């Protein structure tokens, strides 16, 4: 198939970027979207043009590294799919495809389609941990966790931190990401102990990074590759309200 691309090109964070047009004459419809970008980069290098920079790692949909806006939607036209799991068969012959980086003040563009998502790391560092003394492994049955609870915690822990929730949110809110991390730990007995401090610190850090307010449009859940439920946001609000009221 033949496709036309409009790709965001930007030298570095401080430079102004713009959309550049490229054309690919022979694209196999079974290629993944990232493979198509590889083909584009090979073509650009042959022409002596700097290749397009984009993030990727596992290309199996589990690492959360890849992620770009494709035709105005994070990770492209499919719901709950990462960019690497999107294939060219989702596009038609002759289609014009717009590729832009995820945009948010807290996600500055580093180069072309690559954004700096270290704001997510700092949110995790502010409270996404459990403080326990190390030593001998405890007896497994002393801390009992039922299977449904473990599954619920794992559903929240499944967030891969790709940033699609922020990219799709009209307010650039990181509520879905932050709430998934908070819920994951608040559900488990090991994490419950610190849940009050955790939610206050992580929400504070989320605000300091410059993310917006969650207005419950629920767009994030639709685009999330891991189908993280928006109810985690309500859970975060519950934990936050409780912590705020009970804080000494």
């Amino acid at each position: 198939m033949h496709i036309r691309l409009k790709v965001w090109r930007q030298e570095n964070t401080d430079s102004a970027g713009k959309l550049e047009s490229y054309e690919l004459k022979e694209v196999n419809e079974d290629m993944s979207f990232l493979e198509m970008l590889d083909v584009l980069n090979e073509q650009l290098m042959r022409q002596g043009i700097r290749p397009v920079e984009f993030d990727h790692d596992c290309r199996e949909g589990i690492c959360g590294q890849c992620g770009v806006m494709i035709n105005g939607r994070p990770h492209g036209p499919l719901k709950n799919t990462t960019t690497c799991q999107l294939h060219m068969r989702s596009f038609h012959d002759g289609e014009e495809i717009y590729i832009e980086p995820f945009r948010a003040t807290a996600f500055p563009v580093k180069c072309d389609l690559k954004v700096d998502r270290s704001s997510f790391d700092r949110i995790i560092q502010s409270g996404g941990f459990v403080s326990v003394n190390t030593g001998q492994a405890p007896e497994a049955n002393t801390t009992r966790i039922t299977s449904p609870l473990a599954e619920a915690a794992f559903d929240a822990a499944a967030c891969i931190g790709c940033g699609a929730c922020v990219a799709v949110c009209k307010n650039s809110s990181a509520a879905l990401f932050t709430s998934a991390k908070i819920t994951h730990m608040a559900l488990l007995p090991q994490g419950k102990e610190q849940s009050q401090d955790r939610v206050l610190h992580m929400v504070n850090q989320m605000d300091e990074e410059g993310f917006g307010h969650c207005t419950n449009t629920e767009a994030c859940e639709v685009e999330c590759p891991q189908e993280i439920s928006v109810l985690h946001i309500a859970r975060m609000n519950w934990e936050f309200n409780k912590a705020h009221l009970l804080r000494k």
Partner: protein
Amino acid sequence: MTQTTLTRKIWMALTGLFLCFFLVIHLLGNLQLLLPGETSQLQFNAYSHLLSGNILIKIVSWVLYASIIAHVIYAIIITVANTRARQQQYHYDRRGSVSKWYSRNMGLLGTIIFIFLVIHFRDFWYVYKFGQLPLDAQGNKDLYTLVTEVYSQTWYVGVYVLCMVALCYHLLHGFFSAARTLGAYHPKYVRWIKVLGWVYSVGICAGFAFIPVYVHFLK
């Protein structure tokens, strides 16, 4: 309270829910306009008089004014912060296809409601409180006649009904969003709240829109 994104949203939710509660009381009072002829006039005027003389109602009315003002101010603060959270816009944007239009346009719907409120306050609240109104047979200020006169204008009723449609969409998202902000996360109650929100929003707005239409055509 230190101002985080979440505490600002809590204030939006609490003030919004108070306004939701007020709308129920307001609608119940207005339903007296549907009573037949003379009874309607005397009872509606007596009810208005009762409200304006009661200290408890006075306190509630101050909470009401404060809620409206706080809701507007927080809406502005939140909108400004959200705009700052994304300085560079997408050149090609199809994000709207994955969320409801009214959930993304609460500010616009709210502005329509605010303009409506200004007109509403000017036409009824201001005239009743500070204007000169004739008295009815029982010696109460005749708000009833003022209301029926205003509702006899077709364009006014049209604008009124349109504003109620805007209010309905604002409530549809607002009611459910407020519950989420306050932390309703249990899947069962979340479903109930959604249904309750629909029934509430449609019921309130249909009720408010029906009264001027009824008065216009049948009084």
